[in-house]
Each structure stands twice: as C-alpha cells, then as structure tokens.
C-alpha cells in the first residue's frame, strides 16, 4: 500500500514533468513562465511530502526552505514577466526567435 506522503511526492514529480513538457512545447513566453511556476510547485510539493515522512512532527527545515522558495519564485516570475513585456514592446512578438 502506497503511503500518503509518497502519493504527494509522486504528484510533485508528476507536476514537475508536466511543467517541463509545457516549457518545451509552448512557444508563447507567458505559457513558459507559467510552466516554470508549475515545475516549482512540483518541487515544493516533493520537498514537503518528504518532510512529512519523519515520525511525529514533520521536519521543519524543508518547510522553511519552501517558504523561501515561494518568495524567490514570485520575485523571479515578476522579473520574467517584466522582461517578456519589454520584448513584446520592442519586437512585438511574444516568442523567442528560433535559432538558425
């Protein structure tokens, strides 16, 4: 029988793969940024699920790391969105050009 911590951890790895698929397949930069956020959530879920395995009280060190991660992720997202808007104003495109 699969334990609930493992179920959450597997969901986390599934989210990571789903996000990576979105990152590879979609050309639109907004979708790429969204996909990176989904990947990040997957990693956070994995970390907290693994912390849940410790007997009694869950391990708090990964919790603190995830809180740090959430705040850094939102600032990185804001920066990425700013860069995307700049690109859209200057080249009027929301895709990166293909490398030839």
């Amino acid at each position, binding site marked *: 029988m699969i*334990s*609930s*911590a*493992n179920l*959450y951890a597997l*969901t986390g*790895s599934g989210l*990571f*793969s789903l996000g*990576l*698929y979105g990152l*590879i*397949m979609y*050309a639109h930069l*907004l979708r790429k940024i*969204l996909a990176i*956020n989904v990947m990040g*959530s997957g990693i956070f*879920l*994995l970390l*907290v699920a*693994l*912390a*849940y*395995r*410790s*007997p*009694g*009280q*869950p*391990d*708090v*060190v*990964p*919790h*603190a*790391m*995830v*809180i*740090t991660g*959430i*705040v*850094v*992720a*939102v*600032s990185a*997202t*804001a*920066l990425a*969105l*700013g860069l995307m*808007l*700049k690109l*859209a104003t200057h080249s*009027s*495109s*929301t*895709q990166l*050009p*293909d490398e030839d």
Partner: protein
Amino acid sequence: MFFIAFGLLMALAWVRLQAPDVALAEAAIGAGLTGALLLAALSRLNSIEHTTAAPAYPQKSARALQLQSWLAMALLLILNAGLAYSILSLPDTGAGLTPLVTMQLEHSGVKNPVTAVLLNYRGYDTLLEVFVLLLALLSVWSMGTSQQQPEASPGPVLDNLMRLLAPVLILVAAYLLWVGADAPGGAFQAGSVLAAAGVLLLLSGWRLPTRLLDRPLRIVLIAGPAVFIATALATLLSSGRLLQFAPDWAGVLILLIETFATLSIGVTLAALFAGGRPHHPPDRS
C-alpha cells in the same frame, strides 16, 4: 485563471501535509500574488498586441509538431519513471533534522520551529533572500518606468470595500508577524498579506502621492535588508559569528528583523506588481 485555483489547491495540500506556515505563504503568494501578476501581464500584453502587428514566424508543420510532442512526452515519461522509482525506494520514515531543531528550540528565542529555522539557525539564507527580492525589484525598475496610470476613481462599492479591507489586511499582517514567534506566521506571510493590501489598493485606483514616491519609498524598500545587515554585523562584533544571537536577546532581535523585513517584503512585492520605476515628480525630471 486556473493557476489561482491551482495555488489554492496547493495550499490545501500543504495543510494536509501539516505545513501550516507554507500554506499561509502559498495562499497569499502562490495563489494571490502570482496570479495577479500573470493576469496584469496578460492584459498589458493584449494592449501591446492590439497596437502592433505581430511578425510572422515560420510555422512548423502540424506533423513535425506532433512528432515533437510525442518525443517530449516519451522522454518525460522516462524521466518521471526514474523520479518515481527514486521516491519509492526512499525509506518510509526518516527523522531528518527534527531532533536537532527541537533540541535547540529553547535557545532560539521563539517557539515556532519554522521561524526558528528561518531567522536563527539558517538566518543567512533569509538575509540573502531579502536581497534577492531587492535585486528583482531593481532589475524590474532598471527596465524603465511604469506606464503613467491616472488616478482612476473606482465605483462607490469598490471604494468603500477597499476602505474597509485595507485596514483589516494591515491588522492581519501585524497579527501574523506577532504570532509568528509561537504559531504559524512570520515575516514572509505577513509581508505577503501586506503586499496583497497594496495590490488591491493599486487595482482599485489608489496611487501614492508623488512626494512619497521618491525617497520615502526607497527608504522603506531598503529598511528590511539594512536592519538585517546591521544586526548581522552587530552579532559579528559581539559574539564573533555572523548572526549568532545570544539566547537572551534572540527573541527581541528576531522580532526587530522580522518587523522591518515585513515592511520591506510587502512594499517590494507591491512595487513588483506595479512594475517599472515610478515616475519622477515633474519638478525633478
């Protein structure tokens, strides 16, 4: 957008995994702020796309796209199988660092283990993180000024709602900050609630008076990192180790750092939402 619902579901997952601190941060930031950021970017993107014609990129044929999609899916399935195998092969229980954290908790100055880890045991992580936030804001500001948005007057309902909500949100932020020493809460959660208040105010058309935009805003932005650095230097001089708090002083110092960090985090996140450096007052530019 589905992403906001996704964030709320994640917050529920954190509660189920007995991580209430993470749940608070996720509900405020992951669900609220990131969603608001994405929606704001989307609406600005639409206004840009309406004014300019997009250049035509050579489109790949449908067949090539399908092939690429199958290939990516196959590779990711292999990757995911590997990840799943390594997760399932981990031992079912592992104490991790819990014994160490609880053993030292009485010397840390706070009773909430997550706050103890964030600000005492691994204080330098948090110190650097506050600077990451500042750096992100500086990069966004260096890309140009925000679009001049006139002070819009919201409808009477929205206006009155905001007048009621903003003080409540500030009160909630202060409560989360104070309670963070003993129960789930702390600087990041309080800061993100403060940022949510700022974003709501920005969305409903409130603007800071221009005389506050220049120096006072910048002072609040660097107050958190500056106080953190000053405390770190003081502990370096007094005890010889960076951020090594004496047990008697730890509680006070942590509360001091957290208070200023909350202010800075809240204002930085709200400024990130506004996007771009604020316009200089007309008499200076």
